[in-house]
């Protein structure tokens, strides 16, 4: 209840704030303070609502549907806190919270800058209000009580002592498919429980828990970072809108710049943290899979980065009262960045992508769908409406030419290439809306030439001067970096054995970018260090690109079987599986593998477990990281030993359940029942010799044949005896018996079987893994961190400039 009151209050306060800011804009003088009070009250209420939700999660108040659905009492405090954003409702709350807090800082920032405050905060608070509507009672609010919609709760999650209550019978259901017993929690039951003095959070002892894919360290960092980036991206939109309503375009770039940089720094870092998470825990094998969720957060980042480059031009070309160049571009890109954040939310939260993604989406219902469209619609109309309204003026005032050989043109061209990339990704990602989809190669094949172009453009832009560069000057400055780059590229191509033409070009582009940026950075380092940002960031991008070449073209992978105690060689590594150890109270299993290479020995232990959350097998990889490569081992499956070794490669392996029939080469093979001699049980227990047979009925060409392959135990040694049906040209080998009523058979043709299996070998436990070598994976992470450092330096510099 309290949570919903906070949210409703916050919404009212934010609407009040918007109106007051609007009146201030209309010329009232006494409304500004009221608007501020409104904003502050709204923020306080949002913080209170968030604290209330967090408290409910930490104290396991399962009467809230959200707490029951996403958390559980067995989670550590840190993970419990991260369940705040495990579901859709909570992640909207997180976005809301960060937007509110960003707004506080923005309010403080704009209040010191003339009449900026009401122009910026008016629109910013509108965005806040939309988010508040999203989590309002009845929509995506995390404070819904569990009984308000009938909910079926697994009986395991109910405190056992309450199950004997007389009225429980009518709320108990069983599900035929899964054999689960479920309690239907509805208003009636809640009422009865309350009448008996039982509170719901006592009645429900456990929550459903956190999805195992999310239940790890990075869950605590990646989503908050992403939403912080999303929240801050609201600011550039607000600044652009503020400039448009005043029809004044000089100062807004300076004021907006630190916000744009900070937002893109955090968003960029968040995206790559997601990639790192996918790589080291989720076992995707790589850091990027062109998944719709990844793509949709990458697109606003790319557009924001394009905006950064054209912002620089406007700032640089300002003189006296002149607003500078590329005003229109900057306004449009600032507005687009936020619109794309909203579109990204729409794609991933509306359920529209359905089966297109590995991320799972629950359709949030028509109301939220409509609301999201309304949200995007409103901001599109406001943003582009304002531009259309001012277009004549903008067109007349800010149209100019660029010289062919100028830094301006190179930067602009770079931005256009970035926009092209963004467009391509958005088209590919949005395809499922129209009932189709694209393969991953769509992104790779298109992204590659753009990346190559960007690398060269970046290098070139640093060698070009502002306004105009003479051809001779350009040639002079390009000569050295170009020669060094060619030499380095040739060296890399030969050492690395790169054969693909595009890969060579890509390497060249990255090396050229690296050389020019490092060269510039070193020159600047002696002077103004605060100017280093761009060069550091681009050095990072170049390193990242080299990492892409190494991992993209030279990753080798192979699926191998590791038999316990036997050494297997993969890519020069000697792997020996030594057995498994249970971890975390036996819920998970570590599969220990000794890895030997060049005399050094390491142990890696990928993990597999069946998650009780979704009854599916979860696999966590393990990695040996060296500077030159990562050795990545991802578990695939595990088989206990005991059965007979399969020694016929052309055989077909089948599992037949009692009473069922399988087909092989025209023969129908039916497993009727086990032949279990009466003394077998006693013999089994006392360790004497015994056998168990599987009675099979084979029908071939209308005739029936009965055979009985057996599992025998003689003086403790287990062996299997197969059977043949010559008429059907059928060789049956028994691989294993399962007491639950299944047999595993290996079927083959007799005449194919020139070497009959004579060696009765007891099968060893075997672990199947996918092993891969990823050269220079580190460059990806080092590159990313370098880019973030560059952003940080630039953000500091632009903040200082904005304070002037």
């Amino acid at each position, binding site marked *: 209840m309290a949570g919903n009151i906070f949210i409703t209050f916050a919404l009212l306060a934010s609407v009040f704030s918007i109106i007051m800011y609007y009146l201030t804009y209309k010329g009232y003088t006494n409304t500004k303070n009221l608007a501020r009070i409104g904003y502050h009250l709204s923020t306080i209420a949002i913080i209170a609502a968030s604290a209330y939700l967090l408290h409910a999660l930490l104290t396991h108040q399962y009467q809230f549907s959200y707490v029951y659905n996403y958390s559980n009492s067995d989670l550590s405090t840190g993970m419990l806190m991260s369940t705040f954003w495990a579901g859709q409702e909570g992640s909207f709350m997180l976005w809301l919270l960060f937007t509110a807090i960003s707004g506080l800082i923005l309010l403080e920032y704009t209040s010191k800058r003339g009449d900026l405050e009401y122009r910026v905060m008016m629109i910013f608070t509108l965005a806040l209000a939309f988010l508040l509507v999203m989590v309002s009672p009845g929509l995506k609010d995390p404070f819904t009580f569990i009984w308000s919609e009938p909910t079926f709760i697994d009986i395991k999650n109910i405190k056992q002592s309450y199950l004997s209550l007389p009225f429980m019978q009518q709320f108990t259901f069983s599900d035929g498919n899964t054999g689960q017993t479920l309690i239907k929690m509805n208003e009636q039951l809640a009422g009865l429980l309350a009448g008996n003095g039982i509170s719901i959070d006592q009645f429900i002892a456990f929550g*459903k828990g956190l999805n195992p894919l999310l239940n790890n360290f990075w869950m605590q960092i990646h989503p908050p970072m992403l939403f912080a980036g999303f929240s801050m991206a609201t600011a550039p939109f607000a600044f652009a809108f503020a400039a448009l309503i005043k029809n004044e375009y000089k100062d807004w770039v300076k004021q907006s710049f630190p916000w744009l940089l900070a937002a893109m720094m955090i968003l960029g870092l968040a995206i790559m943290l997601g990639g790192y998470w996918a790589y080291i825990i989720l076992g995707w094998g790589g850091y990027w899979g062109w998944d719709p969720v990844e793509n949709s957060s990458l697109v606003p980042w790319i557009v924001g980065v394009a905006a950064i480059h054209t912002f620089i031009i406007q700032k640089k070309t300002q003189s006296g009262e002149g607003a500078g160049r590329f005003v229109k571009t900057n306004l449009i890109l600032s507005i687009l960045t936020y619109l794309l954040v909203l579109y990204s939310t729409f794609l991933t939260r509306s359920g529209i992508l359905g089966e297109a993604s590995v991320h799972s989406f629950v359709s949030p219902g028509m109301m939220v769908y409509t609301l999201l469209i309304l949200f995007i619609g409103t901001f599109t109309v406001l943003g582009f409406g304002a531009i259309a309204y001012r277009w004549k003026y903008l067109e007349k005032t800010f149209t100019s030419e660029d010289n062919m050989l100028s830094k301006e043109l190179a930067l602009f061209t770079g931005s256009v290439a970035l926009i092209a990339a963004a467009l391509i990704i958005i088209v590919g990602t949005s395809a499922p809306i129209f009932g189709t*989809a694209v393969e991953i190669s769509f992104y790779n*094949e298109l992204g590659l030439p753009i990346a190559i172009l960007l690398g060269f453009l970046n290098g070139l832009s640093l060698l070009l001067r502002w306004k105009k560069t003479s051809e001779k000057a350009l040639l002079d400055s390009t000569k050295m970096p170009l020669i060094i780059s060619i030499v380095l590229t040739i060296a890399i191509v030969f050492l690395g054995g790169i054969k693909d033409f595009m890969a060579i070009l890509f390497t060249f582009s990255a090396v050229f970018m690296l050389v020019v940026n490092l060269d510039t950075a070193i020159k600047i380092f002696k002077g103004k260090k605060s100017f280093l940002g761009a060069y550091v960031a681009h050095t990072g991008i170049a390193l990242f690109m080299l990492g892409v070449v190494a991992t993209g073209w030279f990753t080798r992978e192979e699926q191998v079987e590791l038999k316990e105690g036997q050494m297997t060689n993969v890519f020069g590594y000697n792997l020996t599986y030594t057995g498994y150890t249970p971890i975390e109270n036996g819920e998970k299993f570590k599969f220990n593998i000794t890895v030997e290479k060049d005399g050094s020995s390491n142990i890696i232990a990928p993990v597999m477990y069946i998650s009780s959350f979704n009854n599916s097998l979860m696999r966590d990889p393990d990695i040996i990281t060296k500077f030159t490569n990562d050795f990545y081992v991802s578990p695939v499956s595990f088989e206990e030993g005991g059965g007979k070794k399969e020694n016929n490669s052309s055989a077909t392996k089948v599992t037949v359940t009692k009473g069922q029939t399988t087909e092989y080469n025209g023969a129908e093979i039916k497993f009727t029942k086990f032949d279990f001699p009466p003394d077998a049980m006693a013999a089994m227990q006392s360790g004497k010799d015994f056998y168990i047979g599987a009675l099979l009925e084979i029908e071939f060409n209308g005739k029936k044949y009965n055979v009985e392959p057996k599992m025998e135990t003689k003086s403790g040694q287990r062996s299997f005896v197969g059977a043949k049906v010559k008429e059907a040209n059928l060789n049956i080998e028994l691989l294993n018996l399962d007491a639950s009523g299944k047999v595993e058979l290996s079927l083959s043709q007799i005449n194919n079987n020139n070497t009959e299996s004579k060696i009765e070998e007891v099968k060893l436990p075997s672990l199947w893994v996918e092993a891969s070598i990823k050269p220079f994976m580190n460059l990806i992470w080092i590159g990313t961190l370098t880019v973030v450092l560059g952003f940080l330096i630039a953000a500091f510099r632009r903040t200082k400039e904005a304070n002037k």
Partner: protein
Amino acid sequence: MNNKYIFGGIIIVVFLGIMGYLFTQTNVQYEEDFTKIVNSKGTIKATGEWVKEKHYSIDKSNNIFTFYMKDFNGKEIKVVYKGAIPNNFESSTSVVVTGKYQNGEFHASDILTKCPSKYETQYEIKETNS
């Protein structure tokens, strides 16, 4: 003519052109009707059900996994996948395979299994009780 429009224009036109071409080349069609798959050439994401009666087979030495899948009409196709059997394959309610249909077999490059989650179970019960 303004230089920036020439440069910007060229980039946009060239890449959008390539994009349009690649879009048709890399297009993946969603398909639930297997009779249409048999006559198709492009990459398809097919949704259907595993035919339990026909079992699956595993060829470990070549790492090939084969099974039969049927659509809502009962039309069956043979699916060949190079790789290990997905671990929750047997308990899956529906299977989504991505790949191409060639020589009477569907060559899958990716298998996605959907399992009866708790969520769906509840949903079904809700249907029958209300």
